[in-house]
């Protein structure tokens, strides 16, 4: 069923249409999903587009946008003796002076989990230890964190809540004058939130958006659909990925998020504080809130969390990894300097592995 979306002749048809309707002016499209960046770079899609059509990656990798202050908190909890559980890619993300991987090498009990329910299992099996789940990710992982909290996990379990939500960040970028002509909306996030959260953005900024799937043809088709809107001077939200994304999204997941979280304003790595683009646990769940429970001193907010020369620009789609003097030399997936090189969803990591990023 997947392969039909890989067909070469359909691809050339779409590319031809893109060329036909792209006009001459410069058009900058942004996606906000690491998996879209994978599809685009792995398949060399940028090279197939007309010169005036540019697709840039936005802050769409949840690992990359977790600021170092939040890594620092997990490190502090580990040093206090807690078992830290989190998703694999988080281990090598640099904090201010260390990373969870380094702490693990020094003897910290840090465990990689595949799903939050495994973290709860670890808490059950270690009743004499505090088990903290560093919960990161967008709307695609936040409902799962909510689900384990609703199920009354044991008292020694808590969550360091680093979840973030996508539409307010898109609003922030549009408001900040980054000159984006259209958004390729994230397919997986949309399976959860549905179509409606994007509509106000199109109305407010007159910007076309297309929710896109992850096959090369999906992305090409979405680009075509955005260009078609630009040509007609329309600005609406279209759903290219309707075989998976239902207009209403996933109501149970949304309900879980509403029950457990409320919006808050925190920094994103490489970006400043974005209004309402982060989630925190509601008061009813403060017993499970690691920050409240362990009184981790507030980390001074003196930096935007940028630890490499260009990560900030990379995350905003303003620079190309090859512009960074460290890229591929001092900074590699084995030895990441900046967060964008850590995760398999990070722009620099993808550019390094597939080596054909053309911006």
């Amino acid at each position, binding site marked *: *069923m*997947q392969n*039909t*979306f890989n067909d070469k002749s*359909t691809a050339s*048809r*779409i590319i031809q*249409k893109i060329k*036909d*309707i792209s006009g001459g002016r410069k058009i900058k499209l942004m996606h906000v*999903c*690491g*998996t879209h960046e994978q599809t685009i770079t792995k398949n060399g899609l940028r090279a197939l587009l007309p010169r005036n059509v540019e697709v840039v990656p936005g802050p769409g*990798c*949840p*690992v990359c946008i977790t600021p170092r202050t939040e890594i620092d908190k997990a490190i502090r909890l580990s040093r206090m003796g807690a078992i830290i559980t989190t*998703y*694999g*890619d988080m281990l090598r993300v640099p904090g201010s002076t260390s990373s969870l991987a380094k702490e693990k090498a020094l003897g910290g009990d840090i465990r*990689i989990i*595949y*799903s*939050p*329910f*495994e973290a709860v299992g670890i808490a059950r099996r270690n009743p004499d230890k505090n088990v903290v789940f560093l919960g990161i*990710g967008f709307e*695609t*992982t936040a*409902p*799962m964190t909510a*689900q384990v909290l609703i199920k009354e996990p044991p008292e020694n379990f808590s969550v360091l809540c680093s979840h973030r939500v996508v539409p307010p960040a898109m609003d922030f970028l549009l408001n900040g004058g980054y000159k984006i002509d259209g958004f390729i909306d994230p397919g*997986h996030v949309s*399976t*959860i939130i549905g179509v409606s959260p994007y509509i106000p953005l199109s109305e407010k900024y007159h910007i076309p958006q297309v929710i896109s799937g992850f096959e090369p*043809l999906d992305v090409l*088709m979405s680009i*075509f*659909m955005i260009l*078609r809107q630009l040509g007609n001077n329309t600005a609406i939200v279209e759903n290219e990925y*309707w*075989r*998976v*994304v*239902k207009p209403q999204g*996933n109501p*149970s*997941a949304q309900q*879980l998020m509403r029950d457990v979280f409320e919006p808050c304003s925190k920094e994103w790595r490489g970006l400043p504080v974005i209004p309402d683009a982060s989630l925190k646990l509601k008061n009813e769940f403060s017993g499970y809130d690691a920050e409240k429970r362990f009184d981790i001193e507030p980390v001074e907010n003196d930096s935007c969390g940028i630890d490499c020369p260009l990560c900030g620009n990379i995350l905003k789609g303003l620079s190309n990894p090859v512009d960074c003097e460290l890229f591929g030399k001092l900074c590699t997936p084995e030895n990441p300097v900046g967060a964008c090189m850590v995760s*398999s*969803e990070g722009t620099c990591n993808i550019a390094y592995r597939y080596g054909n990023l053309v911006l």
Partner: protein
Amino acid sequence: MNNYTFMCLAVPARVTVIEGDEAVLDYGGVTRKANISMLSDVKVGDYVLVHVGYAISKMDEEEARETLKLWDEMLKAAP
């Protein structure tokens, strides 16, 4: 498939067995369990997308075929 490094990659899998909130899924030969409590109407034989151990959406085969037809029409209609 190494799920540990693919936190973001929701992979489609076919439901083979349902046991309460859990389902056994087939990822083209590799089997794994997932929680299906966030979806209301999962049946054996359905394709679902899974994120960090939870099925988050159904993938409709009929709609996938329709998509290709719709694309064809859209491309034909474009200038």
